[in-house]
C-alpha cells in the first residue's frame, strides 16, 4: 500500500502541472485584461499609451507561455504573488482572510448534512415506499429544487424582519466589540443560523439519496440474509452489518467533497453578505485578477488530488476486498 501511495503522489506532480497550465491558458482566453478593466476600459485614446507601462509592470505584455513560466517559477517557491486589484495585497493574504469563514460554514453544513442524511437514508431504505420514505423523498428534493436565494430571502423576512429573532446579514453585529466574550460567541452563532440552514436544506438531497441507494443494494445481499438466518436482531443486522457496508460509497463521496469545502457558495455568501471565498473568486473572475484566480486554483487542485488519494486509501483500508484484490495483482 505504501508503494501505491508513493506512486500516486509522484503522479500528482505532472497532474498538477497539466491542470495549472491548461487552466492558465483558459483563464487568459476570456476577453479583457485587468489593466483595461481597472484603469477604465472606456478611456480616451491618448491615455491608453499609459496602459502599456502598466501592462509591462504586471508582465501582461509577454507571450502566454512565458507568463505561465514566470508564474510557475514563483509558485514552486510558494510565492503566490500580489493581486492585480487596486488593493494590491498578497494573494495569500486575501485568500486567508476569507478562507476561515468559508471553511467554517462548509464544515458545519457538511456535518449537519451527514448527521441527518445518514439516518434518513438508512430509514428510507429499510422502510422503502413507506410513508416515511415518501415524505422524506419529497422533502429532500424540495430542498434540492428550491433556489437558495429565494429561500434565504423568505427566511430573512420571517426571522429577521417580522419576528426579529435572528440577524439578517453579515457575520457580527455592529456592537460586537462591546459585547462580553460569550455575548460575542452567541452573536456570531446567531448570524450563522440562517446561512447554514439554507445551505443544508439545499444539500440534503445528494447524501441522503446516495445513502438510501447504497443501503438498498446492501440489504439485498446474501450475507444480510445469512445474518438474519443466524437469528441476529434486526437492529444488529442493519445497524452493524448493513450500515458498515453501505457507508463505503459515502466515504468516497466525502473524500471527493473535501476540496469543495474551500469553495464558498457564491449565492449564499452574496445574499447573506458573508465575506467568503465564493465572492472573492467571482470578483477576481470579473476583474481578471489572474494571480488570485491561479492561487485559488493551485490550492483547490492540490487539495483535490490529495483528497482523492486519501479517499482511495481510506476506502482500501475500510474495504478488505480492495486490499486483497490489489495484493493479488
Amino acid at each position, binding site marked *: 500500500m505504501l508503494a501505491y501511495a508513493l506512486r500516486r503522489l509522484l503522479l500528482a506532480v505532472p497532474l498538477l502541472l497539466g491542470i495549472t497550465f491548461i487552466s492558465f491558458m483558459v483563464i487568459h482566453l*476570456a*476577453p*479583457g485584461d485587468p*489593466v483595461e*478593466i*481597472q*484603469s*477604465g*476600459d*472606456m*478611456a*480616451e*485614446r*491618448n*491615455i*491608453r499609451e*499609459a496602459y502599456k*507601462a*502598466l501592462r509591462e*509592470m504586471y508582465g501582461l505584455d509577454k507571450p502566454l507561455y512565458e507568463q505561465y513560466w514566470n508564474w510557475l517559477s514563483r509558485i514552486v517557491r510558494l510565492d503566490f504573488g*500580489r493581486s492585480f*486589484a*487596486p*488593493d*494590491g*495585497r498578497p494573494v495569500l493574504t*486575501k485568500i486567508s*482572510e*476569507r478562507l476561515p469563514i468559508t471553511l467554517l460554514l462548509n464544515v458545519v453544513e457538511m456535518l449537519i448534512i451527514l448527521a441527518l442524511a445518514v439516518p434518513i437514508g438508512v430509514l428510507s431504505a429499510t422502510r422503502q415506499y413507506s410513508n416515511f420514505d415518501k415524505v422524506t423523498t419529497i422533502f429532500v428534493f424540495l430542498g434540492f429544487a428550491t433556489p437558495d*436565494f*429565494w429561500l434565504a*430571502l*423568505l427566511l*430573512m*423576512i420571517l426571522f*429577521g*424582519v417580522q419576528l*426579529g429573532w435572528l*440577524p*439578517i*446579514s*453579515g*457575520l*457580527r453585529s*455592529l*456592537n460586537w466589540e*462591546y459585547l462580553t466574550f460569550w455575548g460575542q460567541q452567541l452573536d456570531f452563532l446567531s448570524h450563522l443560523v440562517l446561512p447554514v440552514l439554507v445551505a443544508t436544506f439545499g444539500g440534503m438531497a445528494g447524501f441522503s439519496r446516495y445513502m438510501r441507494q447504497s443501503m438498498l443494494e446492501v440489504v439485498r445481499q446474501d450475507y444480510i440474509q445469512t445474518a438474519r438466518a443466524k437469528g441476529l436482531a434486526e437492529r444488529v443486522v442493519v445497524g452493524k452489518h448493513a450500515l458498515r457496508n453501505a457507508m463505503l460509497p459515502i466515504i468516497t463521496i466525502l473524500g471527493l467533497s473535501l476540496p469543495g469545502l474551500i469553495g464558498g457558495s*457564491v*449565492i449564499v455568501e*452574496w*445574499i*447573506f*453578505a458573508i*465575506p467568503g471565498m465564493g*465572492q*472573492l473568486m*467571482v*470578483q477576481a473572475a*470579473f*476583474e481578471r485578477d489572474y494571480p488570485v484566480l491561479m492561487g485559488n486554483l493551485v490550492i483547490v487542485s492540490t487539495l483535490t488530488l490529495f483528497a482523492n488519494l486519501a479517499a482511495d486509501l481510506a476506502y482500501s483500508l475500510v474495504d478488505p476486498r480492495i486490499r486483497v484484490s490489489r495484493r493479488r495483482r
Partner: protein
Amino acid sequence: MLMPLSRIAVVVAVVALAGCSSESGPPPAARSGTDSRPATLGIVATAEAADKPEPKPAAEATKAFGDTLVEASIGNVSSLIPNITSDAPSHEVGDLMYSGLISLGKNLEVEPELAKSWSFSKDCLTLDFQLREGVRWHDGKPFTADDVVFTWEATMNPKTPSPYKSDFQDVEKVEKTGPLSVRVIYKRPYAKALVSWGVTILPKHLLESYVAAGKIKEAPQNWTAPVGTGPYKFKEMKSGEKIVFVANTDYYKGRPAISRIVYRVIPSQATIFLEVKAQGVDVANLTALQYRRQTEYPAFVSAYNKYRYPGAGYTYFGFNLKDPRFSDRRVRQALAHAINKKELLEGVVLGLGREATGPFRPGFWANNPNVKGIGYDPKRAAELLAEAGWKRNDKGMLAKDGKPFTFELLTNQGNDERKKVAEIIQASLREQGIGVEIRILEWATLLKEHIKKRSFEAIVLGWGTGSDPDQFVVWHSSQSGPDDLNHISYANPEVDKLLEAGRSACTQAERVKFYHRLHEVLAEDQPVVFLYWRDALPTVASRVHGIAPGPAGIKWNFTDWFVPKQLQRYTAG
C-alpha cells in the same frame, strides 16, 4: 465628463424584487459591481425642485454631536486611494476621507474646498488657485501646494494605474507658485478645467516614495492607514464586512456632527432592503419598486424619509451607424416614434424617471428646455419607414430588396432595467414589422468583442453624465477608433464644430449657446434614441436632520447632517 452607465447602473438601480425575485444573480462584480467617477463630479441632479414627500418636521432642530450613521454599500471598497480606482464604493468612502480643491454645492455650483479662490487667465489657458490656510492632514502635517502638484504627478505617472489620467490630459504643467498657491497651465483652453480639480488630493509626504517606485498599491495609505484632509478619519476596515470612520475634529469647515459612519458591505440589493426594513441600515438607495410599493406602510414611513431626484444617467437605444439600414435618418426617427416612452418609463422604473430628449439632464444649464422629444406616433413611424423603402412582405414583416428587417439587440448582463427596455423595444418594433433578437452578454465580453470591434447592430446601454456638459468623446467623428467611445460611429460636421467650440470656451455664458444648439441637432438627428433619465431614490432614517435635497442630490451637505440628542441611537463612541 462621462462614465459608462453600465457600471453605476448596477449600484444605483438594479431593479430587484425582494422575496420571489427575478434577481439576476450576483452582480457583475468588476470592482464589486459598481463603477463610476468620483462622487463630486458624478451624481448630479437638476434645478427642478426635487420631487419628494415632506420630511418629518424637525422637532428639536438643535444641532448635536454624536450618533453613528450606518450605510449600506453594495460593493467592496477596493482601495483607500480613490485616485487609482473607479468603483463607486471606493469613491464614496474616499469623499469622506479626502478633499478636492473644489466641490459642488447644492445647485451644482463650484464651491471652494481646499482652494479658497481661483481665477482663469483671459485666454483660458492658465488657472490659478489660492489654497486654504491652516489645513492639516489627519496625521497632523500641514497641507501645502506641494500636495496638489504631487497629486497631479502621481496620477500621470505611467506606473500609477489611475483611470483619471484622461482628466488631466490637457494639462501642460502644474506648478507651485507659493506655499499655498498653485498654477495649472493647459495646452489648450479646457472648459472642464475647474471641475476636474474636484479630484481627491493625496499627501505627498506619505506617498512620494511609493509612487516613484511604481508601488502605490503597497503603501499603507492604500489599505491600512489612509490619511486625508476630509471630514472623516479612517478607523478600521474588515474587508468584505464593514468600514468605520470617525469624525475629524480638526476639519477645516468645522467638526461634522455625526460622530461615526459605518459602511456595511451588503452585496445584494434585496438584503439591503430587508436590513432597511429591520432598521439595521440608516441610508440606502431604493429601487423603483421598493420606493413605490414596498415602503408605504406606517412603520416605515415613521422611521424613514424618502427622497427623489433626477439621476445623472440616461439609457439609450443605440445603432451601429455604419449599418446602411440605420444610417438613414428616417429609419432612426421612425424607430424613435415607434417606442412609447411614457409606457417604457412606467414599465421599467414605475414612472420614477423622466423622458430623455438629449444627452443633458433636464434642468442642467446645458439642457435646452425647448427641445421636444420624439413622441410616440406609430403611424408616423410607418410612414417614415415606407419613405425609406421598407415594404411589408407576405409574412407581414418589413423588407427591402427581399431581405426582412431584423436585427440583433445587445445589452449587458446583470442589469434588469436594460433587459426590460430591450423587451419593450422588441415588442414595439414587432408592431411595425421589424424583428428584434435580444442577446445579453457579460460586460467585458460585450465591450471587447462587440462594442470595440464595432461588431453589433443595435444596443441598449447608458451614459452617465457629470457636472460638465462636454461630450466630445462620445459624439465627435474623430472618436470612432476601435478604443474610442464614439462606438456608434457617428459623424456629423455640425455636431463636431459645436463640440469643439463648447470645449474650448471657458465661460458658461459662451458655452451654453453651443450646447443648446447641440441638443437641438442631436434630438433631430437621433443618432441614438434617447430613452429616459432614471431618478435616484435614497432613503434616510428619519432621526437624521439637516438633509436639504437639491439638484446635486442629498449628500452635498453631508457634513451638516446631525441627529438631535434625544433621537440618537448609537451612543457608543
